[in-house]
């Protein structure tokens, strides 16, 4: 699954690091409890261990900033993060205005066609979503595209995705509690067959 954030490799690395560090910590706890041999650790060992983890954390910060920076750069190159934002930004295959409301999403195409619950795209397209909320704080999450945003009423928020290659229906959901209809606040990313 190709995501716009380019997470697959980076994310797998981070999860492996989590499992390794967690495994080391839990092993140390159980060894300290059940190993017959006793071991008086020296103070420098703690400093060395923290130093090692500083390296791990430095790597996580660096990779995260690179991945997220590359994602944001696509939008800043297109000029849509400027104030005032450029309309009809170049560099994306499709642009959809999204109106988030209590409780649902409406999608507005370039040709001013509106859909209450479906964003229709072609496989593999780079799609830019320009999201507005007119009432409360909402969230915008497409699991298949691996992206989440949270946005305040009255301000535009832009995210972009690479549409999945497989035609089909993919979930779009609100991830921020926005009132009792929150659980119903869903829409579909519809990827059409690849004839075009």
């Amino acid at each position, binding site marked *: 699954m190709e995501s716009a954030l380019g997470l697959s490799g980076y994310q797998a690395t981070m999860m492996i690091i989590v499992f390794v560090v967690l495994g080391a910590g839990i092993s140390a706890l159980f060894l300290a409890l059940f190993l017959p041999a006793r071991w008086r650790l020296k103070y420098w060992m703690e400093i060395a261990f923290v130093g090692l983890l500083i390296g791990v954390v430095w790597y996580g*910060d660096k990779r995260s900033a690179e991945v*997220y920076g590359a994602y944001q750069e696509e939008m800043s190159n297109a000029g849509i993060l400027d104030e005032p934002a450029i309309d009809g930004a170049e560099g994306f295959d499709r642009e959809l205005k999204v109106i988030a409301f209590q409780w649902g999403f409406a999608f507005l195409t370039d040709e001013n066609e509106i859909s209450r619950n479906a964003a229709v795209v072609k496989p593999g397209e780079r799609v830019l979503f320009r999201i507005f909320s007119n009432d*409360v704080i909402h969230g915008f999450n497409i699991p298949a595209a691996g992206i989440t*945003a949270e946005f305040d*009423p*009255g301000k535009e928020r832009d995210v972009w995705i690479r549409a999945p290659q497989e035609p089909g229906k993919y979930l779009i959901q609100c991830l921020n509690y926005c009132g*009792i209809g929150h*659980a119903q606040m869903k829409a579909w990313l519809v990827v059409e067959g690849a004839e075009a």
Partner: protein
Amino acid sequence: MASAHDAQRMGETPTWVPEDIIGNMTLKSLLFSNDYRHIAIKGILTSIVMLGLGGLMAILFRTELAVPDVQFFGARPYMQLMTLHGMFMVFGFIIPFVIALNYYMMPKVLGTGRLLWAGAAQWSYWLLIIAAVFLIIARPDFTWTFYPPMSLRVGGDLVYLGYLAVLLVAISEFLAGAVLMRNGWEAARRLSWSKLPLMGWGAISEGILLMGSTPILGLVGIYMFTDWMQITAMFDPARGGEVMTFMFMFWFYGHPAVYLPLMPAIAVLYTLLPRFLGRPIWSYWSAVIAFSMLTVLGFIVYPHHFQPAENVVGPLQRATQILTLAIFIPSTLHVFNWIATLWSDPIPKSARRAIPFKFIIAAIFFLMLGGVTAYVNAQIATDSDFVHNTYFVPAHFHAMFVGFMANMAMAGAYYLYPYFTGRMFNQALANTHFWFWQIGIFSKVTLMYYLGYVYFPRWVVDYLPLDQWAMPQMMLTGAAYLIGLGFIVFVINFMWSATRGRKADTDPWAVSDDAVSSGASAQPAE
């Protein structure tokens, strides 16, 4: 690696004597006495009631979540249960519980002999009770983070009581912070800073966190109230307000708020672990540095709570990521210290038998399980993918709140039981409680991590019948029942043993390597 001061730093040698405080007190002394033992017992008992109520709410909404579609509750009662569950557990159960443990232990460990400013602790308690009553009357459905403008437009006519409850919680916690600060400071003055027991460092850190953050929470409560009355428009964008003002103000309290139960729980751990092992903690100064760093970082990492919002960008976003990742330093110093203490010498048989010791070990385990995954939570790129507001976040804070802090609260409760009742609890029932909880909490946390990884959204009463969602939800409900069952065993044990348990020895937690201890054996020795 012991130093000359270590004996002093462990606190006063136990002059603790088991006595039947609960049996000998009157209702009046329980409710209004400023004796630290009565204040602590009152706080602990109330917290256990709150834990029961909050847990019952969790059992109810977990039953609803077991299968897709809406079965028992509509969205509104579901969200009322969810909101009260969060508020009761955080403000009613875990923070007051660990603070009450500190109220009881400080006078003994710090050598002050009594709780200074006990009157403030009394007020703190009663304001919290009023807040809880307000919440039950108002039954808000806007979650414990009550983001405006949503929270200004839901909840019915009585919702303003919810905002006032927030204000009362802020005042109550401020007073509790002042009490902890006062007692820690007094001990530091008497004993000097380099000989202050770690419980004192914990109390001072906690005092700074509480007194620094709660005034802002109080302001949030007041502004929510006046916004709702349409006197002000601080947070309502429809009338010219700014949602981001709320975010920055609320989370300036909201992040320290999650350290409020953490600090006293760590302080209890540093106090009890050396007592069970019969040796001082591995490194005193490493613990002091960790307490200080955690206090400072607690105040400045809060924008990570709303990171995928458009206002957290550029240098602020990067700084938040780096500072959040830096929390690993104090956390690692703490955990490394505990494991090094355990490893340095043989663990006495008496400790291995002791129920509080088992809860401490489980707490260390869950602190790692909840803490290490924060590596992923803190990174902007993963946070903008599957972390933010999926079950990954509740998984992280349930590992911390339930796995670490509630386990530490239980360690404290079992440890103090003989000092409160003069009797021992039933060992077999306590073991049952322990294993029900650890299996339940581990399953729960792991399943929540998994559900977050597959984008299960928070705060939903209903969900799509996807394979990767439905099955883990069903198992998660099972785990919740197991934890609930453990709690029932715990309550039965404590009530039954209070009058029928074996009489406690002079030192119920004596360190010994005998095959059968005099203190915490499974065989009744009567």
